[in-house]
């Protein structure tokens, strides 16, 4: 009888735990609704893919040919870790999304690697593309 009672208590407790967890997931608000309209997403621009490949392959010559000097300087400034140190060992460059309006295309990338101190870094940057050319980097 004691064993049955103990089993009942345990079963009720576990059932309560499961119920509480389910209740929390059901009541969790999640991502708040966007009160603003969103622009349509587009495919990765070709020039963005080429520059991303050049970054991944450490191809400075390709970068020099693909990106204007001002934008290249902005790209260098953008590739700083959250700690403010430059990322020198690029492990991955991933296109995450793009949108366009009135002739301006914004192509977003996330770069992971290590900074000069060997610390893991993750950086997000965006190419401003007009007429098939990168005119700015954020």
């Amino acid at each position, binding site marked *: 009888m004691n064993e049955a009672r103990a089993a*009942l*208590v345990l079963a*009720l*407790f*576990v*059932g*309560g*735990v*499961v*119920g*509480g*967890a*389910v*209740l*929390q*997931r059901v009541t*969790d*608000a*999640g*991502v*708040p609704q*966007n*009160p*603003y*309209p*969103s*622009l349509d*997403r587009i495919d990765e621009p070709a020039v963005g893919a080429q520059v991303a490949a050049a970054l991944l392959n450490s191809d400075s010559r390709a970068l020099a040919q693909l990106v204007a000097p001002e934008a290249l300087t902005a790209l260098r400034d*953008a590739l700083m870790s*959250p700690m403010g140190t430059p990322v020198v060992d690029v492990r991955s460059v*991933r*296109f*995450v*999304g*793009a*949108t366009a*309006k*009135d002739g*301006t295309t*914004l192509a*977003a990338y*996330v770069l*992971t690697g290590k900074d000069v101190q060997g610390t*893991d870094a*993750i*950086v*997000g*940057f*965006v190419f*401003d593309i007009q007429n098939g050319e990168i005119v700015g980097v*954020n």
Partner: protein
Amino acid sequence: MGRLVGWIPATVRLAVGMLFVGGVVGFALAAAGSTVVADQGWFSGSGESAQARTYMIRLLSRDAAGLNAMRPEQDVISRALSEQSAQQSQQSNVKALSLTYLGGQSQGGLSVHIYAVEVQGSGGRQQLFPLALTLSGGRVVLTR
């Protein structure tokens, strides 16, 4: 207390008590677990972060107090500067037209989420610009 519940059979009291205690424990564990998972970026892939969306909405609505609450602890001067910036922004006629989530990625305790924001200035000129947020522990540590 004995008179309030004394009429309830012991078995029922035990069952209700265990369900209640288990429910509280389960709720707390699920809440804590979801917070840790979100902060660490586990299973998030490239999904939009609730904190990132909230930050962007507060930024576009010029909610300085709300923004400060989502940033790492700052000194009082920095918070005051943020309030001044928000007040100046409120006095301008810049209107947000759209907010588009482009994508993001997580690594370790850091996550990056990138947005495209379209605004209209007082002269009617529209401008599209990006904003990259870096989050750590549910707080925005870097904005580019």
